[in-house]
């Protein structure tokens, strides 16, 4: 049980009738499938310059040393390989009628773009501020008993209310973590006494929240409810994937510490493509 300090406030739970779903696959940390190999042009080199450059690059992950070393930069002047210009987009893709478009969009669930700022205290309680459509004027701040680190890797979800309306959310979420003891000690070293935020008392268990904002916007509050409904429905899976993600992160960090990457050599080809009127255009795929 997290030791809250706040006064008693109304603890809200997500509506029972709301059903949620996460479309697609939640990314863990596995590298994406390599893209299909591209057949490069067969360049005819006309001139080359080679530079050895000492570089210090930012580390690939926080907490690792910078990537430093000497890279070889090769710059080739090459003859025009004679590639045609890429095909222009098909006409039909550009000139879709507005009526067709309206009919298409009319069948889609209402899309919401939500900007969310989450600060998680001691991996236990989250201060959450939600801005629908990125507008700051309707931002709603709540305290939640959900560890919103579990939301990382989720960029979209859908909620269906008891009235049958489907809300499709696209999330832009910034998640930060605060360790109260660590913060207190850090500031104490500099002679500053930390004023810990007043965290309301929240029960452990199913997702609940209390609203900090006065007169919260109804639509934004609905987003907060839907986020908690999603965690109620998918929280176990989200927590497992979050743990897997953290393990993969630590494994990768350990690997990079044991095998420090070196700056990669770079090769560049430049050529003059000539006048566009003399170049053919590639055929439509």
């Amino acid at each position: 049980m997290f030791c809250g300090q706040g006064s008693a406030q109304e603890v809200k739970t997500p509506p029972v009738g709301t059903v949620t779903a996460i479309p697609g696959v939640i990314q863990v940390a596995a590298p994406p499938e390599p893209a299909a190999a591209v057949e490069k042009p067969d360049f005819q080199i006309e001139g080359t310059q080679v530079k050895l450059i000492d570089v210090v690059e930012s580390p690939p992950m926080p907490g690792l040393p910078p990537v430093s070393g000497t890279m070889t930069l090769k710059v080739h002047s090459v003859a025009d390989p004679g590639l045609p210009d890429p095909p222009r987009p098909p006409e039909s893709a550009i000139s879709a009628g507005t009526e067709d478009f309206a009919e298409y969009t009319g069948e889609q669930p209402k899309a919401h773009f939500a900007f969310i700022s989450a600060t998680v205290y001691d991996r236990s309680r989250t201060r959450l501020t939600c801005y629908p459509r990125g507008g700051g004027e309707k931002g709603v701040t709540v305290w939640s008993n959900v560890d919103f680190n579990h939301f990382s890797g989720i960029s979209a979800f859908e909620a269906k209310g008891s009235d049958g309306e489907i809300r499709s959310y696209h999330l832009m979420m910034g998640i930060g973590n605060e360790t109260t003891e660590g913060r207190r000690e850090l500031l104490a070293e500099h002679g500053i006494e930390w004023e810990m935020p007043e965290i309301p008392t929240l029960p452990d268990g199913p997702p609940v929240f209390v609203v900090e904002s006065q007169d919260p916007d109804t639509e934004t509050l609905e987003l907060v409810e839907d986020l908690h409904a999603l965690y109620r429905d998918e929280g176990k899976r989200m927590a497992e994937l979050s743990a897997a993600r953290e393990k993969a992160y630590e494994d990768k960090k350990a690997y990079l510490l044991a095998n420090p990457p070196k700056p990669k050599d770079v090769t560049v080809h430049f050529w003059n493509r000539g006048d566009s009127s003399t170049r053919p255009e590639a055929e439509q795929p």
Partner: protein
Amino acid sequence: MKRSDARQWFLPVIFTVALASQGNSDPEPQPQMDFTQGLQGTFNADWEGIAARTYFMQFSTNLVDWHFAPFIDFGDGEHNRGIESDSDKFFLRLYYGDFPGINSLDDAMNADFDGDGLSNIFEVTHGYHPFDIESTAGGPDASHDPDADGLGNATEQASGTNPMNKDNTLLQLEVIVD
């Protein structure tokens, strides 16, 4: 044909650097360069030129160190360049200016904008900066000897030899007098 893994490179960042437009207080605005994906993993950099304007292109893999592409373009009309690289990140920018007395591409290539004794085209095709007389750690560009054959760049330029290849020795001219 060579094969290579497809990479998501070339961040879509394009910008231009206007050099001093000497003698022209109100230079004609430079249209934005178009940077588009070409075929077979290549990219196209296209821009509309302004009359009597000299164009250099610079590239970078880290937005800190900028290198000159090995060519110079000049004047109005369309300029169309192709680029391919295996770098994970790649940035391009145009580096241009209106210089008095420069009226053709030959003028722009043969001029020596930094006055170090090396022509602009020599500098950009051999990895030097045409506006900096000491653009590497090897001392002044004119006396720098990257192939360590005992001949500095100015000598190699005057002799028409390759400053990057010490086997490419001075051309010996035999004068036959009847």
